[in-house]
């Protein structure tokens, strides 16, 4: 493949392109889902092709084809070149790329047990046992348990001489129980909602989740929610669990710190950002204990890799430091706008998609607190557990999130359960009300397998390290 790419890149150079890169991707996916004791999804998908990006006369063209024949790769390169010419006819400024070392390297994600080699009946057996135990109470209307595995081989070559190959395995699993009593419907999930937790690891990640240990609790909490009181509309001190903090970081810090979004190129679909360049190193994003950083080098985290899809090495970069906005997620095209080099966040959802700035692992640094101490210290408030609802405006300011379950904090202890809990706020005000974050004992990198962005729509697998955190005087519910 590298030889084929070399020939095509030489041909593109002969056409006076300023820059070009070729990406080969072979993506294999296995999905298994058991619903109420029936295996309703058991599928394998193999997807292979090549995408070529060309910068010509200061403008981009991209073409892709589900073929690895050299003649087809050349045709695709020509289409990318013709498309760049069309783009140049409607350009304003020339695209300029930040300088970049041309790496020749190989990267492999950590994997002790290849999930594609684990017998299918072993995986189905575990999911069936979970489903059966979730369904052991007649109030559980639906029990779902699923696993997803991805195996990706990527080769990246550029006219600058980069030659990078990567093999990445990703694994994930989760389950949920929907309870129904003829009137009320409620759901609980484990270890997280939206199909569970994910990592760039092998089947050992699934085994370490100890999925069976939490089935009974999940089922019973779904049933308990049926008779729980509706979460009150109030202003309260709240503690947000780690997985919901991951979602909070994702929506209110990860997305608005994408520099392409800040520069307006995502405005028509996903929107813009309140974290404007004028506020860099100045905007008080949160309280002084809030530190958020991007880190694509965490071994096994879902947003980790060796190199991004522009050939930039994975790295760690601060976004919020002591509450101040200090950085963005950048690409080779956008970084020069703020006088920097790319921090390596350009990723594409397959060979047939253009790389975009995507979150890697965007993490909230842990604080000092044990969770029990934090609950005790709070005295009176509400604890929010596991995401159910997410909505935020197109500059990432006004948000409204809901969780599967809340508990009253009374006299420094967790008390009665509340159903349908929502909290809402404005991003900087909310993060400035953060006065406590739990310590590393409660910190976990949560894999988010379904982050959407771009046209045509792309789905990225990203992650967020987070621990439970406390926020003061937050609006809970929507009526007051």
């Amino acid at each position, binding site marked *: 493949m590298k030889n084929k790419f070399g020939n095509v890149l030489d041909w593109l150079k002969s056409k006076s392109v300023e820059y070009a890169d070729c990406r080969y991707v072979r993506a294999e996916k296995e*999905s298994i889902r058991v619903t109420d004791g029936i*295996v*309703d*999804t*058991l*599928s*394998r*998908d*193999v*997807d*292979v*092709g090549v995408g070529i990006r060309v910068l010509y006369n200061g*403008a*981009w063209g*991209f*073409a*892709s084809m*589900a073929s690895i024949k050299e003649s087809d790769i050349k045709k695709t390169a020509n*289409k990318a070149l013709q*498309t760049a010419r*069309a*783009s140049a006819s*409607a*350009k*304003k*400024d020339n695209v300029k790329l930040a300088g970049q070392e041309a790496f020749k390297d190989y990267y492999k994600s950590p994997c002790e047990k290849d999930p594609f080699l684990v*017998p*299918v*009946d072993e995986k189905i057996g575990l999911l*069936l046992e979970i489903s059966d135990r979730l369904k052991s109470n007649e109030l559980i*209307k*639906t029990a779902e348990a699923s696993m997803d595995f991805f195996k990706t081989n990527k080769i990246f070559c550029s006219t600058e001489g980069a030659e990078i190959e990567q093999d990445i395995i990703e694994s994930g699993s989760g389950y949920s129980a*929907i309870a129904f009593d003829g009137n*009320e*419907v409620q759901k609980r999930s484990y270890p997280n909602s939206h199909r569970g937790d994910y990592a760039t690891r092998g089947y050992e990640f699934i085994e370490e989740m100890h999925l069976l240990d939490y089935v009974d609790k999940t089922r019973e909490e779904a049933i308990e929610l049926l008779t729980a009181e509706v979460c009150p509309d109030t202003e309260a001190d709240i503690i947000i669990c780690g997985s919901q903090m991951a979602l909070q970081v994702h929506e209110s810090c990860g997305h608005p710190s994408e520099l392409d979004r800040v*520069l*307006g*190129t995502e*405005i*028509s*679909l996903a*929107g813009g950002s*309140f974290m404007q360049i004028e506020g860099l190193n100045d905007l008080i994003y949160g309280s002084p204990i809030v530190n958020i950083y991007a880190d694509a080098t965490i071994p096994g985290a879902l947003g980790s890799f060796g190199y991004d899809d522009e050939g930039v090495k994975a790295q760690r970069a601060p976004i919020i430091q002591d509450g101040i906005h200090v950085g963005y997620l950048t690409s080779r095209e956008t970084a020069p706008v703020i006088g920097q080099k790319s921090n390596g966040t350009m990723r594409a959802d397959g060979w*047939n998609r*253009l790389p975009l700035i995507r979150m890697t692992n965007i993490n909230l640094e842990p604080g000092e607190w044990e969770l029990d101490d934090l609950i005790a210290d709070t005295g009176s408030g509400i604890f929010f557990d596991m995401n*159910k*609802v*997410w909505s*935020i*405006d*197109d*500059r990432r300011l*006004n948000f*409204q999130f809901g969780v599967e379950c809340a508990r009253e904090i009374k006299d420094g202890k967790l008390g009665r359960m509340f159903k349908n809990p*929502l909290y*809402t706020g404005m991003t900087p005000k909310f993060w400035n009300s953060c006065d406590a974050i739990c310590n590393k004992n409660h910190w976990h990198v949560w894999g988010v397998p379904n982050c959407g962005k771009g*046209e*045509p729509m792309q789905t990225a697998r990203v992650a967020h390290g987070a621990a439970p955190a406390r926020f003061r005087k937050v609006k809970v519910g*929507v*009526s007051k």
Partner: protein
Amino acid sequence: MIGKDKLFSTFEKVAKSSRADETEIVFIGNTSGLTRFANSTIHQNVNETNAKILFRVVFGKKIGVAATNSMAINDLRATLKNAIEIAKYQKDNKYFIGLPEPADYAEVDTYFENTANYTPKERARMVKKVFIRGNKRKFTCAGSFSSGDGEIAVFNTKGVRCYQPVTSASINIIAMSDTSSGFAICLSRNIDNIEPPALADIAVEKAFRSKKPKPLPPGDYEVILEPSAIAEIFEWVNYIGLGSKSFLDKTSFLSENIGRKVMSDSISFYDDGTDPEGIALPFDFEGVPRQKVYFVEKGVGKGVVFDRTAGNRHGVGSTGHAVTADEQGEGAIPLNIFIDTGDKTREEMISSVKKGILVTRFHYINGFIDTPKAVLTGMTRDGTFLIEDGQIKHGIKNLRFTDSILRAFSTVKGISRDRRPIPSWWDAVGCLVCPTVHLGSFKFTGTTDF
């Protein structure tokens, strides 16, 4: 385009080697291009030629599914083998009733040469015209313009041979100033029906009229919801309530409301995969002809859509709404949702409002708050206006709504007599066809800074 004859002769050849009781092969292929623009310049311009070929093999009630994107015979045979291997590990699905027999499906014209042959250069030429319209009034433009063709084929060893060549094109445009934005959108299988400069004028006018928006406190207001806003609401209504899975899980607002009044008498909505006013596709991904299915008729809950397996579980037949075999755990979903029109014009509805809000579109709606009550939340964007004494007064800062759609759509005061197809995430094989709707009550629960 590969063509019907070559596709089916290839599939015949491959299926002959199948040891399964029944074998299904579904082909979804496309060649498409999309030009993305922002700050009145093209920043992304992409092309794709791809296909997905899905094999579903059946041994009794055991099913195996595997997919590839290669039409090479060896890859197809390897994928078939993979599906057979997977089926060995399967458990019986007691609700599965086998693959369907052949059935006649409606003939619909879904392929237009002009759309198929549209080039990146032509898209760039049109996009430049959009920029010119914006520049004239000092607005920058952002958006995307896509065009392409494709083929959808369903083959099975019981004789099903469904084939549909398709084209589609769509454009969305946002015109922007420092303090405002405006939006316009169009979708059609025929690119000749899309007029980017005229759409740019609509977006620019909205951005112009909403400059320097004023804040308005949250509260319960009359609203005029334009087609894009209606489509965004009903996209979520579909997701949480119109498919077989949510219905059978009891999370749908229709699960316990069939035959009951759920909305105003004037509200009817249905799925119709054969109506060329939408993005028609007359058969589903099992090869079953799509039926017209009412979800709500004259305000009363009527039903949801089913595939063969979910239909059997519920004791009814398929309505022709199966998704592809790798996604069938999610159940059947409607793809071409139509909301019935009324007898008003948009202007008549606006003129009847004493004090209310005109909404162009919504952003980031989420409907998981309380699905049996269809409670949704979301933000307005790209043109939100105060109406007073029957006139659009000025732009207002964006608002968050949180409301039960069943409650809000029980206060309908008027529906426009025209409607438009609005693209959704499934726009290659469907869309939402929506009118403008006037509601007497809609609850806004929050505000933002712009």
